[in-house]
C-alpha cells in the first residue's frame, strides 16, 4: 500500500513539473515518452549507456520498447493481445518480427504497458480539468476519460481480461487497478485519512471494473450504454454509501449496549 501513497505524491510532482515550464533544466524534465516505468527498470541492463554509443542505437532502450508496444497497439483489433501483434508492431517500425522476444511474456506485457500508459494519459489530461466540479462529477469525468482509451480495443478487451485473470498475472492486474482508482480519487481531491480511504477506492474499483466488463459486450452506438451503466452504478454507490454509514452506526450502538448488558452480569473485563 505504500506504493499507492507514493503514486499520489508522484502525481503532485508531475503537476509541479507541468506547471513550471519556465525552468525545465532545474527540474530535469524528460520528454513525455521516455518516462520510466517499472518494467523498464528490470529490462535495462547495466550496459545501456555503452549501448547508446554503439553505432546502431542512439535511442534509449526503454524508448524502443515503448515505441514497439505503441506500434503494436494498432494491430490489436486484428490479432488480439498476443505475440502476433507484437511481431507486426516490430515489423511496422522496421525491426524483424523476432524482436517480439524483447517481451518474453508475450501479450501480457502489451496489456500491462497499455494499462500503465492509459493511466498516465488520463492523469495528464485531467490535471487541469478538475476545477469547479463537484467530487462525484470529477469521479465521473475520470472514469469516462479512462474508458475512452479502452474504446478502440473493446472488442478484444475480454481477451485481455482473460489473460489478466491467469494466476501468473493476477497480482499485476490487481496492482494496476489499485493504482488507477488511487489516481482517480487523488485527482478528485480526496483527503481522507481513515477507513474511508479504503472504502472509496474499493467501491470505485468495483464500479470501474464492472463498467469495463459491460463495455466488452456493449453494442450500442458509441458505447452510450456503457456510460449509462456507469451513471447508474455511481448513483447506487451514492445512496448505498449513506445506507452503509447508517447501518454502521446502528451496529455500533447494538454492540455497545450488548457489552453493557454483559458487564452488568459481571462478564467481561473491567478496567480498575
Amino acid at each position, binding site marked *: 500500500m505504500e506504493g499507492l501513497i507514493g503514486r499520489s505524491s508522484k502525481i503532485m510532482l508531475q503537476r509541479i513539473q507541468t506547471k513550471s515550464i519556465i525552468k525545465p533544466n532545474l527540474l530535469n524534465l524528460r520528454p513525455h515518452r521516455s518516462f520510466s516505468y517499472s518494467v523498464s527498470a528490470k529490462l535495462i541492463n547495466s550496459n545501456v549507456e555503452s*549501448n547508446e554509443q554503439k553505432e546502431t542505437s542512439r535511442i534509449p532502450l526503454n524508448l524502443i520498447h515503448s515505441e514497439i508496444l505503441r506500434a503494436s497497439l494498432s494491430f490489436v483489433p486484428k490479432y488480439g493481445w498476443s505475440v502476433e501483434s507484437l511481431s507486426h508492431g516490430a515489423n511496422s517500425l522496421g525491426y524483424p518480427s523476432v524482436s517480439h522476444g524483447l517481451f518474453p511474456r508475450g501479450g501480457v506485457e502489451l496489456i500491462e504497458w497499455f494499462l500503465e500508459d492509459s493511466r498516465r494519459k488520463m492523469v495528464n489530461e485531467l490535471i487541469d480539468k478538475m476545477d469547479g466540479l463537484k467530487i462525484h462529477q470529477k469521479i465521473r469525468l475520470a472514469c469516462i476519460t479512462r474508458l475512452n482509451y479502452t474504446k478502440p480495443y473493446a472488442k478484444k478487451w475480454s481477451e485481455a481480461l482473460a489473460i489478466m485473470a491467469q494466476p501468473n498475472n493476477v497480482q499485476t492486474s490487481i496492482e494496476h487497478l489499485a493504482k488507477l482508482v488511487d489516481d482517480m480519487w487523488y485527482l478528485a481531491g480526496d483527503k481522507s485519512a481513515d477507513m474511508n480511504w479504503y472504502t472509496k477506492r474499493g467501491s470505485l474499483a468495483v464500479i470501474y471494473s464492472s463498467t469495463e466488463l459491460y463495455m466488452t459486450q456493449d453494442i450500442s452506438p458509441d458505447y452510450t450504454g456503457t456510460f449509462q451503466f456507469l451513471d447508474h452504478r455511481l448513483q447506487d454507490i451514492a445512496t448505498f454509501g449513506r445506507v452503509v454509514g447508517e447501518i454502521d452506526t446502528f451496529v455500533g450502538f447494538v454492540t455497545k449496549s450488548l457489552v453493557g448488558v454483559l458487564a452488568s452480569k459481571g462478564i467481561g473485563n473491567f478496567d480498575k
Partner: protein
Amino acid sequence: MLIPIGIGLLRPLISSKSRLTYSGIFRGFASSTSQRTSDKQAIKKDDEKEAETNFGFKYVPESMKEKLVGQVFTNVASKYDVMNDAMSLGIHRLWKDYFIRTMAPGPGTKLLDVAGGTGDITMGFLNYCKEIHGDTSAQVTLLDINPKMLDVGRERFNKTPYNQTSQIQFEIGNAENLSTISSNSFDVYTIAFGIRNCTHIDRVLSEAYRVLRPGGRFMCLEFGKVQNPIISSIYNLYSFQIIPVLGQVIAADRDSYQYLVESIQRFPSQDKFTEMIKDTGFTVIDKGWEDLTFGIAAIHSGFKL
C-alpha cells in the same frame, strides 16, 4: 575433483590405440619449441605463439584447436544424429523444439544458422514457418566450418521437400570470421551446441553482432552448468562414465566423445557467458538465459538494438 578423474580417464586413452593424433602433434610441437633458447625476442615470440586454449581437459596452442576440433567432427559426422539421440535419450529434440518456439519467427524471417552441421535447427525453423504461418518465404543460410558435417546436412535435406525450394543455402565458413556474410543482413543468428568448440568466443560474438540487423536476435543453445548438486553428480557420472562408452560402441570413437564431455566442463557458466554477450554490445533481457533440464542446457539470447 573432476579434473583428476578426467585425466585419470584420459591416461588409458592416450596409451590405447587412438584415432586422433592430437597427442602426437602436441608432443612434437613442444619438443621443437624447447630448442629455442637465449634470444629474448624469440622467447617472447614463443610466448605469443604458444598462447594456449583448452581442448577438453588438455591445453593446446590456439592455432591447433581449430584443426583438432575439425578432426573430431569429421570423425563423428556420419553418426552425429544417432549419437545425439543415444546420448541425450532424445531430449535434445525437445530442447531444439523449445528453442525454435522461443524464437517464434514470423513469416519471411532470415536465419543464419552457424555451426548448423546436420541442420536440426534449420529443419525445425523451416517446419515452424511452414506449419504455423503457412510461410515458404523464410530463408536460411546454414553455415559450418566442417565440410563433412555440411555434406551430411545436405543429404538430409535432399530427402525433404525443401530441396526443391531455394530456402536453404549451404555455406562453408568460420564463425570467427564470417567474411562471406555482409553486415546487417540477417534477422536471427543461431548457434546450437557449436560455440564451445570455437577458439575465440568473443570473435564469434562480435561477428554475430555485425551480421545481425538492428532489432535482430542472437540465440545460442549450449550446454551449461548444473546448480543442483544431486543432479550435478548424477549428470557428471553419466557424462564421464557412460557417454564415452556409448561413443565407442555406436561410433567406434571414444576419444571424440571424451572431448565432447570435457569441452562441456570447460565452457563458461551461464552467467559468465551472458556477461560476454553483454560486453559485445547485445541487449540482454531480464536474466539473459533460460535453463533447460536443470541447467544441463541453456538458451542464451541477446538483441542488437
